[in-house]
């Protein structure tokens, strides 16, 4: 039964409750909290995104699950929460990246793209007839020679991190990063730290089938998803 206190403040149209909360937005954040864990780590050599795909049936084709997406040559995102919502945001991000190229003949800044996505997500917390996105994104890439790592959530909040995590494992991941993160490390060391975080977040339940890694380095200058072989070699080193 609905608690009398919050009655009618959690319906389709987002309306403030008397104590200043937006229940629909909070429920959407809850969808993210129940999502799979994704981490992002910045270091001096580049940025890495690692996600756990949480595969719970041997019948599932693991490579049909996609939670890291390349947006443009220099930008990639990782998602947590509703995958369908993430795909809609990813498509929008890809279009915004290309619009910037057509309009200005320049690759879009990671910050500009992140703000555009945040602004878009915010509109779904204010206008009627739609629900907020049940997704958080880690948006990473390189702009003007700088590596960037942004996090968006369903409210449209945009924060930049040195290292962060979203989804179920966020508390465990953040605890580990608070203790062990350093900017002065190689990309391999960043990946190792990310896998360690994921290991803690999933209580060791991950392998080459369930881990996806996306990376952009100074040397390569382009965002790419790692091949299964590469992922396997990093996981091997981990164990």
């Amino acid at each position, binding site marked *: 039964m609905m608690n009398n206190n919050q009655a009618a403040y959690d319906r389709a149209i987002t309306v403030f409750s008397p104590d200043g909360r937006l229940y629909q937005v909070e429920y959407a954040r809850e969808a993210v909290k129940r999502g799979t864990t994704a981490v992002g780590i910045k270091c001096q050599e580049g940025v890495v995104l690692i996600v756990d795909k949480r595969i719970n049936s041997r019948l599932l084709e693991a490579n049909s699950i996609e939670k890291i997406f390349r947006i443009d040559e220099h930008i990639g995102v990782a998602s947590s929460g509703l995958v369908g919502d993430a795909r809609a945001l990813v498509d929008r991000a890809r279009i915004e990246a290309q619009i910037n190229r057509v*309009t*200005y003949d*320049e690759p879009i800044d990671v*910050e500009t793209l992140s703000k555009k996505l945040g602004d878009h997500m915010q509109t779904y917390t204010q206008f009627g007839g739609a629900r907020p996105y049940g997704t958080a994104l880690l948006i990473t890439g390189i702009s003007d020679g700088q590596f960037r790592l942004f996090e968006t959530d369903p409210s449209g909040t945009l924060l930049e991190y040195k290292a962060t995590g979203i989804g179920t494992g966020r508390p465990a991941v953040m605890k580990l990063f608070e203790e062990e993160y350093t900017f002065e490390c190689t990309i391999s060391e960043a990946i190792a730290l990310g896998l360690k975080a994921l290991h803690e977040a999933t209580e060791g339940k991950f392998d080459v089938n369930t881990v996806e890694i996306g990376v952009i380095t100074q040397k390569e200058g382009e965002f790419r998803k790692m091949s299964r072989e590469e992922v396997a070699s990093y996981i091997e080193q981990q164990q």
Partner: protein
Amino acid sequence: MVEQSDTMKGTTTVGIVFESGVVLASEKRATMGYLISNKTAKKIYQVAPRIGLTTAGGVGDAQQLARLMTVEANLYEIRRGKRISVQAASTLLSNVLHGNRMYPFYVQLLIGGVDETGPVLFSVDAVGGSGREDGIVATGSGSPMAYGVLEDRYVSGMDEKSAVELAIRALRSAIKRDAGSGEGMAVVVITPDSYRELTDEEISVLTPN
């Protein structure tokens, strides 16, 4: 079809890339048929801290585009925390012009300045065709006379003083032989550190007799 003659009814504008910046220059005559309608017409607009836009063609169209580009440059800077590049500004300008292809702005433009990549200069036509200019460019009815001088005297990598003198010399020829060009000159020098419009005194000192 926009005939070239439609967009070149008067005016001479000149753009020169020099060693560390860009010179933009124009004369000040505006005409309506055989009437000189204005003797102090403004044909060079500062659309960003280090970007200038020279205009030839319809005055109202040119002014509208200059206002639009100024606003877009401001928005770009405040939204993104960095100045718009000349390349980005010229691409945006091309898009606006091409978007109005069926009801075009009657203009022939030069957009140039200095950004992180150094001095950059583009010419842009009425329907958005744009091209980067590495050295010299001239537009308007006086451009053939201006080009004669520019082609003769331009040297790649010339310094600021020589570039300003060359722009003035090219305009002077156009003013002398083109009925659509005349009155005074406006000369703008853009370097990494400044956007500066020369005073009439500075120009007259540099003008050959």
